[in-house]
Protein backbone atom coordinates (compact mmCIF):
# COMPACT_ATOMS: atom_id res chain seq x y z
CA UNK A 1 0.00 0.00 0.00
CA UNK A 2 1.18 3.56 -0.61
CA UNK A 3 2.12 5.55 2.45
CA UNK A 4 -0.57 7.95 3.61
CA UNK A 5 0.30 11.50 2.67
CA UNK A 6 -0.92 14.37 4.81
CA UNK A 7 -0.60 18.02 4.12
CA UNK A 8 0.16 19.56 7.47
CA UNK A 9 -1.98 22.67 6.97
CA UNK A 10 -5.07 21.38 5.31
CA UNK A 11 -4.94 17.77 6.39
CA UNK A 12 -6.17 16.83 2.98
CA UNK A 13 -5.58 13.25 2.18
CA UNK A 14 -4.21 11.73 -0.99
CA UNK A 15 -6.44 8.84 -1.78
CA UNK A 16 -6.41 6.34 -4.64
CA UNK A 17 -9.57 4.39 -5.30
CA UNK A 18 -9.53 2.02 -8.25
CA UNK A 19 -12.66 0.75 -9.94
CA UNK A 20 -12.27 -2.67 -11.54
CA UNK A 21 -14.46 -5.44 -12.88
CA UNK A 22 -14.00 -9.08 -13.77
CA UNK A 23 -15.32 -8.49 -17.26
CA UNK A 24 -16.28 -5.60 -19.50
CA UNK A 25 -19.73 -4.05 -19.57
CA UNK A 26 -20.58 -4.39 -15.88
CA UNK A 27 -20.87 -0.67 -15.20
CA UNK A 28 -17.32 0.02 -14.04
CA UNK A 29 -17.06 3.36 -15.84
CA UNK A 30 -20.55 4.31 -14.64
CA UNK A 31 -19.45 3.82 -11.04
CA UNK A 32 -16.12 5.60 -11.57
CA UNK A 33 -17.60 8.67 -13.22
CA UNK A 34 -20.62 9.00 -10.92
CA UNK A 35 -18.43 8.68 -7.87
CA UNK A 36 -16.26 11.48 -9.27
CA UNK A 37 -19.28 13.68 -9.97
CA UNK A 38 -20.69 13.06 -6.49
CA UNK A 39 -17.39 13.96 -4.81
CA UNK A 40 -17.19 17.07 -6.96
CA UNK A 41 -13.53 17.80 -6.44
CA UNK A 42 -11.64 14.73 -7.57
CA UNK A 43 -9.22 13.47 -10.19
CA UNK A 44 -10.35 10.72 -12.50
CA UNK A 45 -7.71 8.67 -14.31
CA UNK A 46 -8.86 6.50 -17.17
CA UNK A 47 -6.49 3.51 -17.21
CA UNK A 48 -8.73 1.41 -19.43
CA UNK A 49 -6.38 2.45 -22.20
CA UNK A 50 -7.60 -0.03 -24.79
CA UNK A 51 -11.16 1.18 -24.62
CA UNK A 52 -11.24 4.40 -22.64
CA UNK A 53 -14.70 5.85 -22.22
CA UNK A 54 -14.72 7.89 -19.01
CA UNK A 55 -14.33 11.04 -21.09
CA UNK A 56 -17.71 10.37 -22.72
CA UNK A 57 -19.37 10.92 -19.35
CA UNK A 58 -16.99 13.46 -17.83
CA UNK A 59 -16.80 15.55 -21.03
CA UNK A 60 -13.63 17.31 -19.94
CA UNK A 61 -12.15 20.25 -21.72
CA UNK A 62 -8.83 18.81 -22.89
CA UNK A 63 -5.92 21.08 -22.08
CA UNK A 64 -2.96 18.93 -23.05
CA UNK A 65 -2.18 15.88 -25.08
CA UNK A 66 1.20 14.17 -25.14
CA UNK A 67 2.55 11.01 -26.74
CA UNK A 68 3.91 8.18 -24.60
CA UNK A 69 6.98 6.27 -25.73
CA UNK A 70 8.83 3.18 -24.74
CA UNK A 71 12.52 2.79 -25.54
CA UNK A 72 13.25 -0.03 -27.98
CA UNK A 73 16.68 -1.21 -29.09
CA UNK A 74 18.24 -0.36 -32.40
CA UNK A 75 21.24 -2.44 -33.42
CA UNK A 76 24.32 -1.04 -35.07
CA UNK A 77 25.38 -4.03 -37.13
CA UNK A 78 28.83 -2.61 -37.77
CA UNK A 79 29.61 -2.94 -34.04
CA UNK A 80 27.73 -6.18 -33.43
CA UNK A 81 29.59 -9.50 -33.36
CA UNK A 82 26.36 -11.56 -33.26
CA UNK A 83 27.26 -13.04 -29.88
CA UNK A 84 23.57 -13.61 -29.04
CA UNK A 85 23.70 -12.12 -25.54
CA UNK A 86 20.88 -9.63 -26.19
CA UNK A 87 18.49 -12.37 -27.33
CA UNK A 88 19.47 -14.50 -24.36
CA UNK A 89 18.73 -11.82 -21.76
CA UNK A 90 15.50 -10.58 -23.34
CA UNK A 91 12.70 -11.93 -21.14
CA UNK A 92 10.14 -11.08 -23.80
CA UNK A 93 11.85 -12.91 -26.66
CA UNK A 94 11.82 -9.80 -28.79
CA UNK A 95 15.23 -10.33 -30.39
CA UNK A 96 16.57 -13.00 -32.73
CA UNK A 97 20.31 -13.13 -33.35
CA UNK A 98 21.21 -14.95 -36.55
CA UNK A 99 24.63 -15.67 -38.05
CA UNK A 100 24.95 -12.28 -39.69
CA UNK A 101 21.84 -10.41 -38.65
CA UNK A 102 19.94 -9.26 -35.56
CA UNK A 103 16.17 -8.85 -35.73
CA UNK A 104 14.27 -6.75 -33.21
CA UNK A 105 10.54 -7.39 -32.96
CA UNK A 106 9.62 -3.98 -31.64
CA UNK A 107 6.00 -4.81 -30.92
CA UNK A 108 7.13 -7.47 -28.42
CA UNK A 109 9.69 -5.23 -26.70
CA UNK A 110 8.76 -3.95 -23.23
CA UNK A 111 11.54 -1.40 -23.18
CA UNK A 112 13.27 -2.90 -20.14
CA UNK A 113 16.76 -1.97 -21.34
CA UNK A 114 18.36 -5.34 -20.49
CA UNK A 115 19.70 -5.93 -23.99
CA UNK A 116 21.49 -2.61 -24.09
CA UNK A 117 22.92 -3.16 -20.63
CA UNK A 118 24.36 -6.56 -21.50
CA UNK A 119 25.72 -5.77 -24.97
CA UNK A 120 29.50 -5.81 -24.59
CA UNK A 121 30.05 -4.27 -28.01
CA UNK A 122 27.92 -1.20 -27.33
CA UNK A 123 26.06 -2.03 -30.51
CA UNK A 124 22.64 -1.21 -29.05
CA UNK A 125 21.10 2.19 -28.67
CA UNK A 126 17.59 2.94 -27.58
CA UNK A 127 15.11 4.70 -29.80
CA UNK A 128 11.62 5.82 -28.86
CA UNK A 129 8.56 4.04 -30.09
CA UNK A 130 5.16 5.71 -29.57
CA UNK A 131 2.61 3.41 -27.96
CA UNK A 132 -0.21 5.88 -27.31
CA UNK A 133 -0.95 9.22 -25.73
CA UNK A 134 -2.18 10.86 -22.56
CA UNK A 135 -4.76 13.62 -22.39
CA UNK A 136 -5.43 15.85 -19.46
CA UNK A 137 -8.31 18.18 -18.93
CA UNK A 138 -10.87 19.60 -16.55
CA UNK A 139 -14.58 19.74 -16.02
CA UNK A 140 -15.44 22.20 -13.30
CA UNK A 141 -13.63 20.98 -10.19
CA UNK A 142 -12.99 17.58 -11.71
CA UNK A 143 -9.56 16.84 -13.12
CA UNK A 144 -9.25 14.30 -15.88
CA UNK A 145 -6.29 12.24 -17.12
CA UNK A 146 -6.83 9.58 -19.73
CA UNK A 147 -4.55 7.20 -21.62
CA UNK A 148 -5.27 5.91 -25.09
CA UNK A 149 -3.30 3.04 -26.55
CA UNK A 150 -2.58 3.05 -30.29
CA UNK A 151 -4.73 0.64 -32.28
CA UNK A 152 -3.23 -2.84 -32.43
CA UNK A 153 -0.66 -1.96 -29.78
CA UNK A 154 -0.03 -4.57 -27.07
CA UNK A 155 2.04 -2.58 -24.57
CA UNK A 156 -0.76 -1.33 -22.33
CA UNK A 157 1.09 -1.59 -19.03
CA UNK A 158 3.78 1.06 -19.70
CA UNK A 159 1.08 3.53 -20.80
CA UNK A 160 -0.99 2.81 -17.69
CA UNK A 161 2.08 3.41 -15.58
CA UNK A 162 2.48 6.83 -17.22
CA UNK A 163 -1.16 7.69 -16.52
CA UNK A 164 -0.69 6.68 -12.90
CA UNK A 165 2.40 8.85 -12.60
CA UNK A 166 -0.04 11.75 -12.79
CA UNK A 167 -1.87 10.85 -9.59
CA UNK A 168 -2.48 14.12 -7.74
CA UNK A 169 -1.43 14.55 -4.17
CA UNK A 170 -3.87 15.83 -1.56
CA UNK A 171 -6.78 14.73 -3.62
CA UNK A 172 -9.07 11.81 -4.26
CA UNK A 173 -7.90 9.94 -7.34
CA UNK A 174 -10.31 7.57 -9.01
CA UNK A 175 -8.80 5.02 -11.36
CA UNK A 176 -10.96 3.43 -14.04
CA UNK A 177 -9.07 0.14 -14.44
CA UNK A 178 -9.17 -2.19 -17.46
CA UNK A 179 -11.60 -5.11 -17.12
CA UNK A 180 -10.38 -8.64 -16.40
CA UNK A 181 -7.27 -9.79 -14.58
CA UNK A 182 -4.56 -9.08 -17.16
CA UNK A 183 -1.25 -7.44 -16.33
CA UNK A 184 -2.86 -4.14 -17.41
CA UNK A 185 -5.46 -4.52 -14.67
CA UNK A 186 -2.75 -5.32 -12.14
CA UNK A 187 -0.73 -2.30 -13.21
CA UNK A 188 -3.82 -0.10 -12.87
CA UNK A 189 -4.94 -1.24 -9.40
CA UNK A 190 -1.50 -1.62 -7.81
CA UNK A 191 -0.93 0.86 -4.96
CA UNK A 192 -4.61 1.78 -4.64
CA UNK A 193 -5.88 2.33 -1.13
CA UNK A 194 -9.06 0.52 -2.00
CA UNK A 195 -10.46 -1.27 -5.02
CA UNK A 196 -14.13 -1.31 -5.90
CA UNK A 197 -15.10 -4.40 -7.87
CA UNK A 198 -18.17 -3.86 -10.01
CA UNK A 199 -20.03 -7.00 -10.94
CA UNK A 200 -23.33 -8.36 -12.17
CA UNK A 201 -25.15 -11.09 -10.26
CA UNK A 202 -24.92 -13.63 -13.08
CA UNK A 203 -22.95 -16.90 -13.19
CA UNK A 204 -20.43 -15.39 -15.65
CA UNK A 205 -20.17 -12.23 -13.62
CA UNK A 206 -19.47 -14.23 -10.47
CA UNK A 207 -16.93 -16.46 -12.16
CA UNK A 208 -14.92 -13.47 -13.42
CA UNK A 209 -15.31 -11.64 -10.13
CA UNK A 210 -13.77 -14.55 -8.23
CA UNK A 211 -10.68 -14.29 -10.45
CA UNK A 212 -10.43 -10.58 -9.63
CA UNK A 213 -10.84 -11.33 -5.93
CA UNK A 214 -7.90 -13.73 -6.10
CA UNK A 215 -5.72 -11.11 -7.79
CA UNK A 216 -6.65 -8.38 -5.30
CA UNK A 217 -5.93 -10.68 -2.37
CA UNK A 218 -2.50 -11.47 -3.79
CA UNK A 219 -1.82 -7.77 -4.19
CA UNK A 220 -3.03 -7.10 -0.62
CA UNK A 221 -5.41 -4.41 -1.76
CA UNK A 222 -8.53 -4.00 0.36
CA UNK A 223 -11.67 -4.22 -1.73
CA UNK A 224 -15.44 -4.29 -1.74
CA UNK A 225 -18.10 -5.21 -4.27
CA UNK A 226 -20.76 -3.19 -6.02
CA UNK A 227 -23.50 -5.29 -7.56
CA UNK A 228 -24.89 -3.59 -10.63
CA UNK A 229 -28.31 -4.56 -12.04
CA UNK A 230 -28.59 -6.28 -8.69
CA UNK A 231 -32.16 -7.46 -9.22
CA UNK A 232 -31.48 -9.15 -12.56
CA UNK A 233 -29.67 -12.32 -11.56
CA UNK A 234 -29.38 -14.87 -8.84
CA UNK A 235 -28.25 -14.55 -5.23
CA UNK A 236 -25.02 -16.55 -5.67
CA UNK A 237 -22.87 -13.41 -5.72
CA UNK A 238 -24.27 -12.28 -2.39
CA UNK A 239 -23.83 -15.76 -0.91
CA UNK A 240 -20.25 -15.88 -2.17
CA UNK A 241 -19.41 -12.45 -0.71
CA UNK A 242 -20.92 -13.40 2.66
CA UNK A 243 -19.00 -16.65 2.77
CA UNK A 244 -15.75 -14.89 1.83
CA UNK A 245 -16.30 -11.94 4.12
CA UNK A 246 -16.26 -9.46 1.26
CA UNK A 247 -18.24 -6.28 1.92
CA UNK A 248 -21.00 -5.43 -0.56
CA UNK A 249 -20.73 -1.67 -0.53
CA UNK A 250 -23.54 -0.81 -2.92
CA UNK A 251 -26.30 -2.34 -4.97
CA UNK A 252 -27.62 -0.65 -8.08
CA UNK A 253 -30.90 -2.19 -9.22
CA UNK A 254 -31.75 -2.19 -12.90
CA UNK A 255 -33.49 0.98 -14.02
CA UNK A 256 -34.20 1.72 -17.64
CA UNK A 257 -33.50 5.39 -16.97
CA UNK A 258 -29.94 4.46 -15.99
CA UNK A 259 -29.52 2.41 -19.15
CA UNK A 260 -30.92 5.27 -21.21
CA UNK A 261 -28.65 7.84 -19.55
CA UNK A 262 -25.66 5.59 -20.23
CA UNK A 263 -26.50 5.27 -23.90
CA UNK A 264 -26.69 9.06 -24.15
CA UNK A 265 -23.39 9.61 -22.36
CA UNK A 266 -25.12 11.02 -19.27
CA UNK A 267 -24.31 10.23 -15.67
CA UNK A 268 -26.78 8.45 -13.40
CA UNK A 269 -26.75 11.49 -11.16
CA UNK A 270 -28.03 13.62 -14.01
CA UNK A 271 -30.78 11.17 -14.88
CA UNK A 272 -31.76 10.21 -11.32
CA UNK A 273 -30.68 12.95 -8.89
CA UNK A 274 -31.46 10.75 -5.87
CA UNK A 275 -28.31 8.80 -6.78
CA UNK A 276 -26.11 11.74 -5.87
CA UNK A 277 -26.75 11.05 -2.18
CA UNK A 278 -26.08 7.35 -2.70
CA UNK A 279 -22.71 7.99 -4.29
CA UNK A 280 -21.79 10.51 -1.59
CA UNK A 281 -22.67 7.85 0.98
CA UNK A 282 -20.50 5.40 -0.94
CA UNK A 283 -17.62 7.87 -0.82
CA UNK A 284 -18.02 8.38 2.93
CA UNK A 285 -18.08 4.62 3.37
CA UNK A 286 -14.92 4.22 1.27
CA UNK A 287 -13.13 6.92 3.26
CA UNK A 288 -13.97 5.13 6.47
CA UNK A 289 -12.73 1.84 5.12
CA UNK A 290 -9.46 3.41 4.01
CA UNK A 291 -8.69 5.22 7.24
Amino acid sequence: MTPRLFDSKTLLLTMIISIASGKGGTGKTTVATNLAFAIGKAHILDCDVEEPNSHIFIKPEITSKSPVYIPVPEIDKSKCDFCGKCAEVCAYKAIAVLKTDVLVFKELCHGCGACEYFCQKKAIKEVNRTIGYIETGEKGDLLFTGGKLNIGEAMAAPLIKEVKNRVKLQMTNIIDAPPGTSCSMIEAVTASDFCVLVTEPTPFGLNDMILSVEVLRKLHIPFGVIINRSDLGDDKTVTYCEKENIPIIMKIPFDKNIAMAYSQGKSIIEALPEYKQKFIALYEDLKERIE
Partner: protein
Amino acid sequence: MKLCITSQGDNLESQIDTRFGRCQYFIIADSETLEFEAVKNPNIDGMGGVGIQSGQLMSEKEVKVVLTGNVGPNAFQTLQAAKVDIITGISGTVKEVIEKYKTGELKPVEKPSVDSNFGKK
Protein backbone atom coordinates in the same frame (compact mmCIF):
# COMPACT_ATOMS: atom_id res chain seq x y z
CA MET B 1 21.00 -30.76 -47.45
CA LYS B 2 20.24 -30.04 -43.80
CA LEU B 3 16.51 -30.24 -43.19
CA CYS B 4 14.46 -29.61 -40.07
CA ILE B 5 11.09 -31.31 -39.66
CA THR B 6 8.84 -30.40 -36.74
CA SER B 7 7.83 -33.63 -35.06
CA GLN B 8 5.74 -35.05 -32.24
CA GLY B 9 8.42 -37.61 -31.36
CA ASP B 10 12.19 -38.03 -31.37
CA ASN B 11 12.73 -40.32 -34.36
CA LEU B 12 12.10 -40.66 -38.09
CA GLU B 13 8.97 -42.76 -37.59
CA SER B 14 7.27 -40.04 -35.51
CA GLN B 15 4.30 -38.08 -36.79
CA ILE B 16 5.06 -34.54 -37.76
CA ASP B 17 3.91 -31.68 -35.53
CA THR B 18 2.03 -29.02 -37.47
CA ARG B 19 3.17 -26.18 -35.17
CA PHE B 20 6.56 -24.63 -35.80
CA GLY B 21 7.27 -22.51 -32.70
CA ARG B 22 5.55 -24.90 -30.32
CA CYS B 23 6.37 -28.33 -31.80
CA GLN B 24 7.55 -31.13 -29.50
CA TYR B 25 10.78 -31.94 -31.35
CA PHE B 26 12.88 -30.55 -34.16
CA ILE B 27 14.27 -33.43 -36.19
CA ILE B 28 17.34 -32.06 -37.91
CA ALA B 29 18.28 -34.49 -40.64
CA ASP B 30 20.63 -34.81 -43.57
CA SER B 31 18.49 -35.53 -46.61
CA GLU B 32 21.14 -37.77 -48.19
CA THR B 33 22.43 -39.91 -45.33
CA LEU B 34 19.26 -39.67 -43.15
CA GLU B 35 21.52 -39.09 -40.18
CA PHE B 36 19.57 -37.01 -37.72
CA GLU B 37 19.52 -35.20 -34.41
CA ALA B 38 16.29 -34.85 -32.38
CA VAL B 39 16.22 -31.53 -30.52
CA LYS B 40 13.57 -31.20 -27.83
CA ASN B 41 11.96 -27.82 -28.36
CA PRO B 42 13.29 -25.56 -25.57
CA ASN B 43 10.67 -22.90 -26.34
CA ILE B 44 7.56 -25.03 -26.11
CA ASP B 45 6.13 -23.45 -22.97
CA GLY B 46 7.27 -19.91 -23.72
CA MET B 47 4.84 -17.06 -23.10
CA GLY B 48 5.47 -15.46 -26.46
CA GLY B 49 8.09 -14.98 -29.10
CA VAL B 50 8.47 -18.76 -29.48
CA GLY B 51 8.50 -18.60 -33.27
CA ILE B 52 11.34 -16.08 -33.13
CA GLN B 53 13.35 -18.22 -30.73
CA SER B 54 12.74 -21.38 -32.74
CA GLY B 55 13.76 -19.48 -35.87
CA GLN B 56 16.98 -18.44 -34.17
CA LEU B 57 17.61 -22.06 -33.23
CA MET B 58 17.35 -23.03 -36.92
CA SER B 59 20.00 -20.45 -37.69
CA GLU B 60 22.26 -21.79 -34.93
CA LYS B 61 21.86 -25.33 -36.25
CA GLU B 62 22.56 -24.16 -39.80
CA VAL B 63 19.36 -25.63 -41.11
CA LYS B 64 18.66 -24.87 -44.78
CA VAL B 65 15.03 -25.96 -45.09
CA VAL B 66 12.27 -26.08 -42.47
CA LEU B 67 9.35 -28.43 -43.13
CA THR B 68 6.35 -27.91 -40.90
CA GLY B 69 2.59 -27.43 -40.81
CA ASN B 70 2.26 -23.73 -40.17
CA VAL B 71 4.53 -20.75 -39.68
CA GLY B 72 3.46 -17.43 -38.15
CA PRO B 73 4.70 -14.02 -39.27
CA ASN B 74 7.47 -13.52 -36.69
CA ALA B 75 8.96 -16.97 -37.24
CA PHE B 76 8.65 -16.42 -40.97
CA GLN B 77 10.54 -13.16 -40.80
CA THR B 78 13.28 -14.72 -38.67
CA LEU B 79 13.67 -17.74 -40.96
CA GLN B 80 13.76 -15.56 -44.03
CA ALA B 81 16.44 -13.34 -42.54
CA ALA B 82 18.38 -16.50 -41.68
CA LYS B 83 17.99 -17.59 -45.34
CA VAL B 84 16.12 -20.75 -44.40
CA ASP B 85 13.58 -22.06 -46.92
CA ILE B 86 10.16 -22.74 -45.46
CA ILE B 87 7.82 -25.50 -46.56
CA THR B 88 4.42 -25.65 -44.89
CA GLY B 89 1.37 -27.88 -44.98
CA ILE B 90 3.20 -31.19 -44.64
CA SER B 91 1.71 -34.37 -43.12
CA GLY B 92 2.66 -37.96 -42.29
CA THR B 93 5.82 -39.21 -40.59
CA VAL B 94 9.18 -37.48 -40.58
CA LYS B 95 10.61 -40.10 -42.91
CA GLU B 96 7.75 -39.75 -45.40
CA VAL B 97 8.27 -36.01 -45.42
CA ILE B 98 11.98 -36.34 -46.13
CA GLU B 99 11.27 -38.73 -48.96
CA LYS B 100 8.67 -36.46 -50.41
CA TYR B 101 11.08 -33.55 -50.15
CA LYS B 102 13.66 -35.47 -52.14
CA THR B 103 11.25 -35.98 -55.02
CA GLY B 104 11.25 -32.20 -55.42
CA GLU B 105 7.47 -31.97 -55.09
CA LEU B 106 7.49 -29.65 -52.09
CA LYS B 107 7.96 -25.98 -52.80
CA PRO B 108 9.00 -23.26 -50.34
CA VAL B 109 6.34 -20.71 -49.40
CA GLU B 110 6.61 -16.98 -49.75
CA LYS B 111 4.42 -15.83 -46.90
CA PRO B 112 3.40 -16.88 -43.38
CA SER B 113 0.62 -19.46 -43.29
CA VAL B 114 -1.05 -18.34 -40.03
CA ASP B 115 -1.46 -15.29 -37.79
CA SER B 116 0.58 -14.59 -34.67
CA ASN B 117 -0.10 -16.80 -31.65
CA PHE B 118 -1.71 -19.51 -33.77
CA GLY B 119 -0.01 -22.39 -31.94
CA LYS B 120 -1.26 -21.09 -28.59
CA LYS B 121 -4.89 -21.70 -29.32
